[in-house]
């Protein structure tokens, strides 16, 4: 069984990255038409323009849906086997495995790009195949390219295993659900992509170029590991069980022999399956996340059944959540801090009354009236590459949102939004939708008496923008369940 190791914990003299560099060089020397080549493998994730003949084979990366995790597992699995084949052909070990970049440790040094990826040349004077100039200058100079908000696991490792807004897996990938990333995809996945590629023409920030950067694969190895970590964190954390997710959709990749292999989600759920047969040196849940957090103090829900939408099976079931507030028009973001009022005409009392058909107690606390609160940024579009904002709730007027960490909602790195906003693209120009489970924050602020039941205030702080980003949010909305 291959073991994927933490790149920051490789022992002195470990040759894993040296062999990776040699294999990358060998792959880069092959023509793009060769499935064993570097550029062919990168194009599977994204390429622009897409040659018509390669439609269906290149530019196939899955984002904003529950297929994000399984597709990328298949992708890096086959890539790993191809690199291993090159390593073996070059005289290296036969059990080479892709390491992972674990930037979520308590060691601040891991927030920097691993050293062997930073230098343009090797000690021998030869070009370093692991170096890419198209990265954030901070990354290539060894600075802390990632920050605590980029790698915060507190949301994704505690989120529920659903395709609902704020769930671990992202949207259900069915019609009219929109493109909605899950919690792991949003942070740290999107944030790391954006920060490493945060420069004009940065590769990691652009899905059409990201996989050209050798660090891409170590990043996704870690994302794949975090899927296992999430499963380890809570006995209630389970993979989805819908037949649609498991078996209905197939993907094709090239294996190490160059043959096409067809894979389904169900094929890649167990790391011990013969097709996978790998493990991570550490996939245990950080202790800080193993204890279940306090849930809302709510008696047995009496409202409508909140079914998890899973596609066509949702027909004829009750709607899972209820809109309680939304902006009346689109809002635009740029390179300045922006605040927007969010009218919420449906109060928690009114929501519970409509759900139960009975008036709740006037003294009922918000957490007793509302089980779940989700904040949505709907139909977000932009022509920029991965604009990024920190989102805050109810920051007092005139205050700097960054001084109110307790009102921080999420960092939204809009990886892939340029492609999702292209009317002629395969997404139809619908943009992306981001959803955040803000139940704890909402209840906390309500307990403090800092929630006006008729209106909220949402603030956006641009994160180290390159130039002036132009982002349109079709609607900011609030839902109760």
């Amino acid at each position, binding site marked *: 069984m291959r073991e994927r190791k933490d790149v920051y914990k490789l022992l002195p003299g470990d040759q894993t990255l040296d062999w990776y560099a040699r294999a990358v060089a060998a792959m880069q020397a092959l023509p793009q038409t060769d499935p064993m080549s570097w550029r062919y493998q990168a194009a599977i994730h994204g390429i622009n323009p897409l040659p018509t*003949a390669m439609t269906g084979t290149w530019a196939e990366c899955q984002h904003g849906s529950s297929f994000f995790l399984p597709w990328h597992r298949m992708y890096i699995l086959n890539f790993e086997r191809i690199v291993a084949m090159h390593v073996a052909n070059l005289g290296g070990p036969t059990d080479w495995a892709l390491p992972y970049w674990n930037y979520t440790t308590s060691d601040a040094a891991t927030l920097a790009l691993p050293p062997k990826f930073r230098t343009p040349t090797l000690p021998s004077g030869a070009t370093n195949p692991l170096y890419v100039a198209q990265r954030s200058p901070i990354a290539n100079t060894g600075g802390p390219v990632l920050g605590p908000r980029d790698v915060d696991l507190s949301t994704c490792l505690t989120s529920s295993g659903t395709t609902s807004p704020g769930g671990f897996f992202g949207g259900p990938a069915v019609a009219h659900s*929109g493109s909605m990333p899950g919690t792991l995809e949003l942070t740290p996945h999107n944030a790391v992509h954006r920060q490493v590629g945060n420069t004009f023409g940065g590769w990691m920030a652009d899905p059409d170029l990201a996989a050209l950067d050798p660090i891409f694969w170590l990043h996704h190895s870690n994302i794949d590991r975090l899927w296992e970590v999430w499963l380890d964190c809570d006995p209630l954390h389970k993979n989805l069980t819908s037949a649609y997710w498991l078996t*209905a959709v197939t993907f*094709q990749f090239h294996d190490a022999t160059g043959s096409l292999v067809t894979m389904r989600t169900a094929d890649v759920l167990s790391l011990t399956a013969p097709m996978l047969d790998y493990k991570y040196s550490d996939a245990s849940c950080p202790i800080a996340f193993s204890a279940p957090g306090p849930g809302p103090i709510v008696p047995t829900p009496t409202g409508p059944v909140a079914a998890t939408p899973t596609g066509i099976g949702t027909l004829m079931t009750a*709607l899972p959540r209820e809109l309680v507030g*939304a902006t009346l028009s689109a809002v635009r973001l740029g390179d300045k801090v922006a605040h927007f009022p969010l009218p919420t005409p449906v109060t928690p009392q009114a929501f519970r009354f409509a759900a139960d058909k009975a008036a709740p107690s006037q003294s009922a606390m918000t957490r007793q009236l509302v089980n779940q609160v989700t904040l949505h940024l709907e139909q977000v579009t932009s022509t920029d590459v991965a604009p990024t904002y920190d989102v805050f709730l109810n920051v007092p007027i005139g205050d700097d949102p960054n001084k109110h960490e307790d009102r921080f909602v999420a960092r939204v790195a809009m990886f892939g939004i340029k492609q999702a906003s292209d009317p002629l693209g395969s997404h*139809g120009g619908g943009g992306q939708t981001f959803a955040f489970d803000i139940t704890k924050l909402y209840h906390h602020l309500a307990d403090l008496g800092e929630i006006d039941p008729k209106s909220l205030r949402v603030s956006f702080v641009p994160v180290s923008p390159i130039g002036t980003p132009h982002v349109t949010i079709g609607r900011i909305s609030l839902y109760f369940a």
Partner: protein
Amino acid sequence: MISLQSRPDRLVIAIAVLSWVWMLGEAAAAQRLSCCGPHPTQAADLISWIVMVGAMMLPTTALAVRDVATRSFRSRRLRVVLEYILGYTACWILVGTVFALLRRYPLAHDLRTAAAMCLLAAAWAMLPVRAHWFVRCHRQIPLCPSGPRSDLDAFRQGAVHGAPCIKTCWPLMFACGITGHDLVVMIGGAVLAPTFRRSRFEFLGGFDWRFSGRTRQVSGPGVG
């Protein structure tokens, strides 16, 4: 009414069922396999067209109806769903009007023309651009939550879905219409149409911005 607020997709399913019942009833009453006679009036043709849209196309909007309702206040759900259906159907009524006008010509009553349209529908399904139209059939637009703008947005959302659906399905619908809404052709079209679609994922309403799930040879010219 409360039930429809929570389960608005029941409305389009109910409309579809009623449409099929109406067409079956008409056909049974006339002891034919189609609900229209050989030479219906233009008004009858248009009415039959609208009922056919209700029977064949509206069920495909069930998930969209849920989406529009979910993105609206509970108190406005039925209203916006009806506006969505109106917007979606209005697109098809425009096409139906053109169709009814074309029925002045004998060629538009010829079963050979219907057969040709069936072949065209099959060929249409193979067009690469059709996949793009299909994706646009599911595009969400922002919905204003209240006021006249909310009504307009719900109607627009229906039209935004209806227009690309017309591009996708018009040959099939014309084929059905030319036969006088022959029930065998309609049922066959309703059953076979999904299989023409580019992939199973699309049949199920695939929407992600990069998705194929297809089986396909990967080598080809022009690569590199």
